[in-house]
């Protein structure tokens, strides 16, 4: 447990809705070192955001952590009261959201909102907070900070607002920044700028980042490690190179295949993953991906696969954050291991 900034072990989380219990997270385990950039990818409803939100106690009221541990920077986040978590939120862990157009309060100035983030934790005076706000705006690449501080959110463009959101998130120099699809609502050129900014800040401030996205291009350019989520489970985890060059889970392979490629013929079709996402009200007994999997076997529908570890392909000495772990949860891998061991035992 020590030495990790984030250590989530076997987390189970459900939302209790009028329609029944939605099992949003099923045995999710994530470890992150300080300064590491972890990408969480997966389709809508796979539990990416829920995992990150539960890390900072921002789960919706009807969500309950039913099992496991959520450790962050030495705090047991799942056992803390709202009041205790409030002291950590915004100070040690921050978040930026998907839609910068609606994430800022329309009736207060940019300055007011950044200064508030500075003053909530610590004992800075208003004047000091204002100085800090100017610093932050310069840091996130906004010119004329004095003028911007007096402006309202509706007077800024989407990209600018996302920069302001980042400034707010960085106000207290957090150890971990959660970026929940930070570029989804922005147009492409602005996306690139925001990603570049985040890359910059990562190197400057040495903070950990959890980047939640369904854009594989985004994670490839930024992340040290990637967790692929499906139906509330991490189906594959590995270094960025592992995931892109040696994917093991059928879902990961499908995701990679579905990326449009520029080299191919002009009229070649996109390759989708057939079928529908899992209904989390009644998740299937076996592997959640089995109903959509081309290589589905009988056992896949009946029992959940354990995780299988692989050699990690990335031996990149420059990248000191690599955990050097690569595992996936798939019966095909277990079968391979079984065959390699000449039928002696299933290695879990």
């Amino acid at each position, binding site marked *: 447990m020590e030495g990790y900034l984030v250590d989530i072990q076997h987390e189970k989380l459900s939302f209790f809705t009028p329609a029944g219990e939605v099992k949003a997270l099923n045995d999710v385990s994530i470890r992150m070192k300080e300064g590491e950039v972890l990408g969480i990818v997966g389709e809508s409803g796979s539990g990416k955001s829920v995992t990150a939100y539960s890390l*900072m106690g*921002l789960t919706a009221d009807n969500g309950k952590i039913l099992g496991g541990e959520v450790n962050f920077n030495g705090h047991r986040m799942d056992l803390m009261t*709202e009041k205790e978590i*409030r*002291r*950590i*939120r*915004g*100070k040690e862990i*921050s*978040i930026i*959201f998907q*839609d910068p157009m*609606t*994430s*800022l*309060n*329309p*009736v*207060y100035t940019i300055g007011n909102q950044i200064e*508030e*983030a500075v003053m*909530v*934790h610590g004992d800075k005076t208003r004047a000091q907070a204002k100085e800090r706000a100017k610093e932050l705006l310069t840091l996130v690449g906004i010119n004329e900070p004095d003028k911007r501080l007096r402006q*309202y959110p*509706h007077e800024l463009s989407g990209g600018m607002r996302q920069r302001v*959101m980042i400034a*707010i998130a960085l*106000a207290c120099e957090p150890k971990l920044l959660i970026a929940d699809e930070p570029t989804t609502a922005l147009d492409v050129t602005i996306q690139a700028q925001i990603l570049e900014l985040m890359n910059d800040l990562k190197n400057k401030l040495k903070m950990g980042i959890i980047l939640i996205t369904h854009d594989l291009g985004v994670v490839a350019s930024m992340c040290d490690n990637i967790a692929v989520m499906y139906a509330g489970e991490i189906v594959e985890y590995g270094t960025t190179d592992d995931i892109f060059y040696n994917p093991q889970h059928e879902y990961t392979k499908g995701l990679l295949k579905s990326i449009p490629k520029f080299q191919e013929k002009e009229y070649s079709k996109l390759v989708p993953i057939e079928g529908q996402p899992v209904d989390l009200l009644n998740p299937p007994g076996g592997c959640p991906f089995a109903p959509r999997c081309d290589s589905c076997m009988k056992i896949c529908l009946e029992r959940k696969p354990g995780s299988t570890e692989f050699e990690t392909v990335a031996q990149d000495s420059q990248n000191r954050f690599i955990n050097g772990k690569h595992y996936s949860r798939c019966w095909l891998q277990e079968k391979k291991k079984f065959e390699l061991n000449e039928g002696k035992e299933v290695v879990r």
Partner: protein
Amino acid sequence: MVKYIVKRVLFGVITAFVVASLTFFIMNLVPGGPFLAEKAVTPQAQAAMEAKYGLDKPLFVQYLTYMGDLLHGDMGMSLKKRGFTVNDIIRNKFPVSARLGGLAVLVAVFFGVPLGSVAAYHRGKIVDNIIIVFSTAGIAIPSFLSSTLLMYVLSVKLKLLPSLGLDDPVSYIMPVAALALYPTSYIARLMRSSMLDVIGQDYMRTARAKGVSTFKAIFKHALRNAILPVVTYLGPLLASLMTGSFIIEKIFTIPGLGHEFVSAIPSRDYPLIMGTTIFLACFIILMNVIVDIAYAFIDPRIKLK
């Protein structure tokens, strides 16, 4: 901003003129006259009275005379309260009603806004249900019932408060409470529904993520966004409460403008009817301009043009 205000005031003057003209003609269409009900009036005496106040002239001439005087700020003599001008009556009675109504509005905002906010924050919980029940009751109970109940319990039974007049500060409690019951309940309900909308907004999540306390999130971040419907309601509310309530003034024997307003009609006190109506119209127009200006201060996205 200045241009906007000038424009609104000009439109206001036109509206007031239309209101005054309509009232004048409709009032004169109603059968009866100011001197008919009085006993033992000979036809000669009645004719003399009518001649004195210019009521014998053709209606249109009366209208022109009245409007001419009105432009000079003179609303004429009361026909029933001999020796008092309408200006005097409004000048004497309005402050009484205004103080009472203003206090009632303050009370309504002071209680309604937090109650609605708290109810929204605890949606579906017991606190919310209690506030909903009481605010529904507050809207449904007519003021004559609530004021007589208050009077019965606090004055007659417990002998805590005086039942009549406005002689000392304590005597304001009951009429203000009776006046404020409806608007408090209404504001609480308005506030609850707009607050519910705001609480679900993304920027509220941002506030939580910053580590802001619940109290500050609600009363700083949500309140200013959620209060617009209440401000809209406050304009007409201020106008109607500050110009006096006939029922409350009658029950608590308060010498206010609301009483004059209503009693002028059956007695056909033409100048007083005109005066009070025009006064109320101008007050409502003024309040609406103030509300629109307040909008721009509360929400920077609203531009006055």
